[in-house]
């Protein structure tokens, strides 16, 4: 396949992906292609949702941007830096709780600061401020297993914010929560996003979540993941999920996704049949 010429880009972008491809276990019989030809620009302060069927490689893209996995081809830049390794500038929040169970809530939040060797008093103050921002100032001394799933994700967000990231990468962070908690968490995330000024790259397979959150929705194809379409959303916030505009956007995203979900399904069935 002839490689496309690399599109020009400015170094003011929060994230620039050019010609990204990822094949897991490359060169072995178990190799499978997760991502192909991803070109994506994310502006500073932008909220971008990656939407796609399960297993389409959208989480993989997040890991590549975080610098946690090596890409097979292509280039990733974040502001002035070529992404080669993880950096505190790009925080990743996972679907499952990733709090350290042996540390108290505030120690979890201040973990990154303690890696840098900041003094104890400073760490406590920073953790207190971050927890206040997510509405959990009272939970400082609690242990993670004493918190509900929603609270734990808020602590994870507070932990990410203490590093003052320029890009917040979120891998289906609310997928394990119940519907009511999830709606609350979305409002909360929008607040945090507004006053942190960071760009957010948010992976989900929920159309409702995309409609509620995104400045732009990037729709992925089934495996190997490619960008099928990028749909700008210029609905004012706070958004009414039952407004006719939300309804028509939802319908449009549904149309975009349906054929991909069908393809993903067919492929899985073929795998089982084989």
């Amino acid at each position: 396949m002839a490689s496309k010429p690399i599109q020009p880009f400015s170094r003011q972008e929060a994230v620039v992906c050019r010609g990204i491809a990822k094949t897991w276990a490359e060169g072995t019989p178990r190799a499978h292609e997760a991502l192909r030809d991803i070109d994506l620009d994310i502006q500073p302060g932008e909220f971008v949702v990656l939407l796609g069927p399960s297993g389409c490689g959208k989480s993989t893209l997040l890991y590549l941007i975080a610098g946690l996995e090596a890409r097979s081809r292509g280039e990733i830049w974040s502001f002035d830096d070529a992404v080669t390794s993880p950096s505190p500038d790009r925080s990743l929040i996972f679907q499952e709780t990733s709090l350290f169970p042996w540390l108290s809530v505030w120690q979890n939040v201040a973990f990154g600061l303690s890696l840098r060797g900041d003094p104890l008093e400073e760490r406590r103050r920073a953790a207190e401020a971050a927890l206040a921002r997510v509405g959990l100032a009272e939970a400082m001394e609690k242990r993670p297993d004493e918190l509900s799933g929603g609270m734990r994700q808020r602590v994870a967000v507070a932990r990410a914010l203490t590093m003052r990231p320029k890009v917040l990468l979120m891998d289906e962070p609310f997928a394990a929560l119940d519907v009511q908690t999830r709606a609350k968490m979305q409002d909360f995330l929008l607040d945090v996003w507004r006053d942190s000024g960071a760009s957010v790259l948010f992976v989900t397979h929920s159309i409702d979540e995309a409609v509620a959150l995104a400045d732009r929705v990037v729709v992925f194809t089934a495996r190997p993941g490619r960008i099928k379409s990028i749909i700008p959303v210029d609905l004012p916030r706070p958004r009414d999920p039952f407004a006719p505009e939300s309804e028509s956007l939802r319908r449009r995203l549904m149309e975009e996704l349906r054929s991909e979900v069908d393809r993903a399904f067919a492929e899985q069935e073929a795998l089982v049949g084989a």
Partner: protein
Amino acid sequence: MPSELTAGRTVTDVPVAPRFFTLEQRAALGRLGWGTLSVGLFFGIWELLWYLGIADPKLLPPPHIFLGNFADQARFFNTATRWQIGVNPADGPSPYEAVAITIGATSARVFVGLGIAAVLSITIGVLIRYFQFFEKLVLPTLTLLSPVSPIAWLPVAIFIFGIGNKPAVFMVVIALFFHMVLSTISQIDNVNRNLINVARTMGASKRQIYWRVIIPAILPQLLIVLRLNLFGAWMVVLVAESTGVGFGLGQVIMLARNTFNPSLVFFTIAVIGLLGFLSDWALRVIQRRALYWVPETAGVLRGL
């Protein structure tokens, strides 16, 4: 599910009519009751077999015989260093003190060995995962030696350490070491990737990832492995002691065997059983204190 766990924990908060014992104390009493019943049943059957004349009291003396005369049994626990020239064999601690000293000596060997084995094997296990060249250099030999029974090491222990405390401790260490190294490695491989990735995105170095994430994450499982191997430690320490360490429970068993004293054998077995039980309980308490963040999941299977 976390919600169910917390639900289980709040049960004690439910207001109940005031009772003589707290729920926790009643649970402990219940366990004690069942434990007594279990042992009582076992002893009862034994006594019955003796009463019916099926169990020969010379070979299988029932509990009321071998536990009945403590002073008589204690005579055999002689910790006087009577083999040394110039020492009066009648000197030394009283029989009761001798029993305590013997028990203390054996327990100390078990726990010192346990401690050395834990520190040594965790260190080696972590180094194996940390430095690849070390893994390539060391792991094949360790894997080769790990299935060897600790009993096979007994002559080695004597060659190297002679007799005394050292070979007994060495045997305990050897009995635990290989298992614990391999188990440390497999625990490291099973650490939740997300925890490691969180630390990486926050700029942790390899060293910090090991010290701050991997080691705390593997400790709970390792303490369980240590507890499971505790009984193994009690077994080998007796074997080691029977080869001649001056005094110890293994030496008493050996004496009982050589002098054909079944009563003393069963008495010592009872003491060892009790000690094993108590030390397991002690480790469990340590486990709860040291690993405060690990949820207690033992109740999950009880509903089945």
